[in-house]
């Protein structure tokens, strides 16, 4: 026999059991402890609306036991109460309630201020529904959300998809995150009651595609009767339609613009983009407020009827029933038919004669209070005949219905209509079906305003947050005199039920005290309509995306330590940074620089375009040559930097920094469009790979693999050539970022591995080594080259970083020119300086710089140069008295004060002879 485990003991299951019914049959009466006062709470609404039966299912808190199907092997425990929910040592909080009014933490924990962090920690530990499982749970556990046999999520449906609606039992995810599926139906129906299903059927019969989202299993919450029979027939009819997807156990949590309805199913997050939405979420039995209304043994009618009618369980041995309308009589009949002993029925006089059997009827009676400390021992009843106490162990209340309209209230979009009881609570089966059909046609029907309940004087108004009527009253007297203010201050309606229970009472409290109906209007409903897991919000997005060059796998094979560089994963080193450094300085090293932004710019106005875009002179660059230039924004600040190769008169190839490609593409395209020039910009970052071959033996290595003439005269510095290396056609650029003879080989990305392997193979005897970021950052630092983003700030101009030489201020116009002209008239207060440290070590990056004890700047890059045997760094310096310091002291957190000297030339090869070799 199937069973579940409840707090260490095994409980047998019967067919169709919910977690609540199984526990209740086993004698469990206390399902939770309340949020604040630790009141014992038992089953109450039975329809998944109230917070009383929140338990942990397989360690996941917040499951409503009354609507969670029990499944073999589930582990159930109550999330609150210590040492158990039955006997909670903090239950004495109830007796401290005079000292714990609403907002007590604002009032009594204000002073001394140091107390608050400790109090907050204690409150957080005590309050709450249940602890969230620590660490990252295997998603398989999450995927094991309870699924009733035969219930399933439907197959997603695309508009126009003619395939049959396949149905399947939901499977676990096998340890991976939840995924999202999109649907594009004509109609989305939220709610699988008679009204909603009628709307879905009506639309489906017209040939429209429909998605139905039902929070529970369809018909699962209905007691036996005509409504249940009808919805099951509707369900069968719907499943025969090819263009309908029925999502059961799928919670619609909101309605967003564009008519997006996110629906959380057991396995997937369904993103339903519908043309129209019908909200048919039905109604909930109204919460009743009187002293003792949260005692164990007080039930709402639909829940009690379901428990008795479907599960054969008695809400109590002696039940007092209080009803108000025709539906109450149906509930009473279900209880009577199930053999429940009703000792008294309190109904309006008009209904008294309709009560069958030998039930004692108290006409126009109402419950004044419930007796008993934790469980119901009796009910004090008032009627025209007087007040009396009726002994009982359960009170079943059927005081009328309130629309479950949270979703309808949060949607102010055209195309969203209501249907069924959400518009007219208690409207009856045929009226619900009729309204569903009208709703399917898009007809807007005004909701019927339910009569407001009497203003509660005493009792628990908000079950979720433990807010009593007296507290609402005191909050009102403190000045919180509207529904919105009362809600925010008392937190009533803000708990797990999101106002399903207490919202009408909140309004009634304000309505009685306020002169204007404006202040007693409904509070704003916002998504999510029900509590959701963070995992659900992250569905389909819980993965990291790294960009990889075509050499990624090769790097891993060579043992590279990969690290993030912007959106890219790049080799930090290949195991020995020093050897890699030495290879470049003394022999030859190769580096994957395929991450550079690479662009083709062509068209009749390409030269004009680049001339306007860059501060350097582009028109003077002859085909075959290249030029370095910073790229500025309108404020004259450095945005990026480029190497621009002129391929021919109207055709350019240019590079941007790694990570700058996306922004650069937008920048280039925006200006091309703004200037309406005949120019075309193609992002070739992914199309081309690039390998930098650098070192005194770089030419020797390439000569072994290429028949092209690579000597300094044929292919000098600052030129580019199309050459063939190891049979791979490359655009080779002679540039010098690392301060050595260098060739950047830009090649078709798919041929990168061939080229890489050939370079390593042919240069083995030359000592060629691959190197990573660690090495290149030190090499360029020795040369004094900046890294945009690391050494520059948002307001770095070319002049501040020593790139004035790259700006042709005599050009008629370029982006940033006006700003640079204005700035040139102002004194320069900051600049990036090259600083040499000879104290035996280099300070850490970020170290503060001092001049005569005054803070004058900080380091942006720093490293120890093995070649120069000194520390080399770049750092921002502040001028003092109109002059920049020439010596500084860096404060290193480990080494202490390290004296440094500002230098004016690159540390390494200041004449540039090596790169021009």
């Amino acid at each position, binding site marked *: 026999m199937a069973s579940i485990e409840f707090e260490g003991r095994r409980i047998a299951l019967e067919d169709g059991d919910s977690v609540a019914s199984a526990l209740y049959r086993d004698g469990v009466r206390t399902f939770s402890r309340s949020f604040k006062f630790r009141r014992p709470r038992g089953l109450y609404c039975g329809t998944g609306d109230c917070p009383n039966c929140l338990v942990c299912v397989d360690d996941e808190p917040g499951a409503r036991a009354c609507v969670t199907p029990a499944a073999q092997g589930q582990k159930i425990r109550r999330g609150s109460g210590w040492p158990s929910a039955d006997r909670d040592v903090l239950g004495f909080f109830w007796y401290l309630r005079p000292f714990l009014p609403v907002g007590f933490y604002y009032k009594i924990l204000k002073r001394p201020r140091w107390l608050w962090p400790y109090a907050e920690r204690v409150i957080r530990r005590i309050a709450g529904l249940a602890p969230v499982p620590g660490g990252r749970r295997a998603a398989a556990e999450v995927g094991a959300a309870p699924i009733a046999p035969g219930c399933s999520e439907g197959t997603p449906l695309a508009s126009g998809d003619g395939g049959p609606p396949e149905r399947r039992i939901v499977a676990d995810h096998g340890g991976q995150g939840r995924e999202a599926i999109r649907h594009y139906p004509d109609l989305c129906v939220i709610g699988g009651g008679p009204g909603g299903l009628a709307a879905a059927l009506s639309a489906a019969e017209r040939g429209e595609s429909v998605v139905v989202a039902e929070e529970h299993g369809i018909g699962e919450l209905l007691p036996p009767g005509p409504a249940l029979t009808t919805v099951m027939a509707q369900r069968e009819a719907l499943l025969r339609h090819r263009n309908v997807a029925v999502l059961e156990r799928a919670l619609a949590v909101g309605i967003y613009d564009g008519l997006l309805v996110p629906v959380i199913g057991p396995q997937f997050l369904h993103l339903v983009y519908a043309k129209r939405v019908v909200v048919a979420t039905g109604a909930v039995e109204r919460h009743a407020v009187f002293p003792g209304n949260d005692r164990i043994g007080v039930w709402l009618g639909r829940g009690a009827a379901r428990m008795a009618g479907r599960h054969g369980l008695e809400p109590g041995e002696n039940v007092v029933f209080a009803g108000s309308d025709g539906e109450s009589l149906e509930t009473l009949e279900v209880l009577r038919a199930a053999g429940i002993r009703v000792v008294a029925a309190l109904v309006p006089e008009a209904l008294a004669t309709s009560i069958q059997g030998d039930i004692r009827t108290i006409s126009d009676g109402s419950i004044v209070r419930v007796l008993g400390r934790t469980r119901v021992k009796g009910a004090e009843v008032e009627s025209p005949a007087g007040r009396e106490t009726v002994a009982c162990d359960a009170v079943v209340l059927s005081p009328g219905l309130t629309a479950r309209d949270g979703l309808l209230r949060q949607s102010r979009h055209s195309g969203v209509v209501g249907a069924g009881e959400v518009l007219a609570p208690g409207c009856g089966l045929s009226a619900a079906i009729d309204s569903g059909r009208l709703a399917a046609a898009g007809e807007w029907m005004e909701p019927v305003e339910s009569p407001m309940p009497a203003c509660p004087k005493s009792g628990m108004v908000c079950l979720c947050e433990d807010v009593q009527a007296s507290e609402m009253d005191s909050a009102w007297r403190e000045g919180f005199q509207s529904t919105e203010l009362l809600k925010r201050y008392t937190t009533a309606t803000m708990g797990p039920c999101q106002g399903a229970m207490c919202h009408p009472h909140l309004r009634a409290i304000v309505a009685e005290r306020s002169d204007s109906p404006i202040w007693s209007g409904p509070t704003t409903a916002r998504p999510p309509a029900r509590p959701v897991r963070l995992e659900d919000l992250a569905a389909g997005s819980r993965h990291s995306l*790294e960009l990889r060059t075509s050499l990624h796998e090769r790097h891993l094979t060579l043992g590279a330590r990969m690290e993030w560089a912007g959106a890219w994963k790049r080799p930090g080193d290949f195991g020995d940074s020093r050897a890699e450094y030495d290879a470049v300085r003394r022999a030859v090293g190769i580096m994957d620089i395929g991450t550079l932004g690479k662009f083709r710019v062509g068209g009749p106005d390409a030269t004009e375009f680049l001339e306007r875009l860059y501060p350097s002179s582009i028109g003077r660059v002859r085909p075959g040559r290249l030029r370095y230039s910073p790229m500025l924004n309108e404020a004259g600040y450095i945005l990026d930097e480029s190497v621009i190769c002129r391929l021919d008169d109207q055709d350019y190839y240019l590079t941007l920094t790694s990570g700058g490609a996306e922004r650069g593409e937008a920048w280039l395209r925006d200006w091309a469009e703004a200037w309406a020039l*005949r120019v075309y910009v193609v992002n070739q970052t992914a199309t081309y790979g690039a390998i930098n071959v650098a070192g005194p033996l770089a030419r020797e290595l390439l000569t072994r693999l290429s028949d092209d003439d690579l000597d300094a005269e044929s292919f000098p510095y600052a030129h580019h050539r199309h050459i063939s290396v190891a049979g791979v056609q490359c655009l080779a650029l002679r540039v010098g970022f690392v301060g050595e003879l260098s060739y950047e080989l830009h090649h078709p990305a798919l041929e990168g591995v061939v080229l890489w392997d050939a370079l390593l193979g042919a240069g083995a005897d030359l000592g060629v080594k691959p190197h990573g970021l660690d090495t290149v950052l030190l090499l360029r630092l020795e040369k004094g080259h900046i890294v945009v983003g690391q050494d520059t700030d948002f307001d770095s101009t070319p002049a501040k970083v020593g790139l004035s030489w790259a700006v042709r201020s005599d050009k008629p116009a370029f982006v940033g020119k006006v700003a640079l002209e204005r700035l040139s008239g102002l004194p320069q207060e900051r600049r990036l300086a090259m600083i040499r440290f000879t104290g035996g070590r280099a300070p850490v990056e970020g170290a503060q710089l001092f001049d005569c004890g005054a803070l004058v700047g900080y380091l942006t890059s720093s490293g120890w140069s093995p070649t120069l045997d000194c520390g080399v760094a770049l750092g921002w310096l502040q001028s003092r008295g109109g002059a920049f310091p020439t010596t500084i002291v860096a404060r290193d957190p480990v080494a202490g004060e390290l004296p440094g000297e500002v230098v004016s030339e690159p540390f390494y090869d200041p004449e540039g002879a090596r790169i021009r070799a």
Partner: protein
Amino acid sequence: MLEVAPAEAAVILCMGPATELDALRAPADSVGCRVAPDELMVLAPRALRHEVLAELEEWITRGSGLVVDQTDGWSVWTVTGSHRDQVLLRLSNIPPSPGTGTGFVQGAIAHVPGKALIERNAVHLMVRSTAGYHLRDRIAAACRELAPRFTAPAPLRLEGAAPVLRKQRVAVGDGD
């Protein structure tokens, strides 16, 4: 049933005045997808790469536009099988094409910029080659209960390759 295979495709980008692109006829056995008013992306089996490139270069008037071989820059995956529509529904917010459900759409796929050529019996998904592995991984993860079968690379097979461009089927979808 879901089969996924890397497609060996040639991707040629033609940039030029809209009027010139309007008049352009894609070479035989290729398909042209208008990605912007002044941009046309031509897909063809990779074996035809150089032929298609040459033909397009001839068509685009020298000096008025630009023809660029982008083959290495795109990772193309062909999805076939009865559940092929599921891939796009799970990985992208791009709505299905109206009408026949076939056509060319573009937007975010698996959270990266992508394009999709949707044919009657296959869906060809394209992302930049720097994120090609990511698309493969996301298909495997998002469709795992459909047990996708990943097969060896195969030449791009176009159902409706025709010399006339399908610009009337272009749809632009919003991204994630």
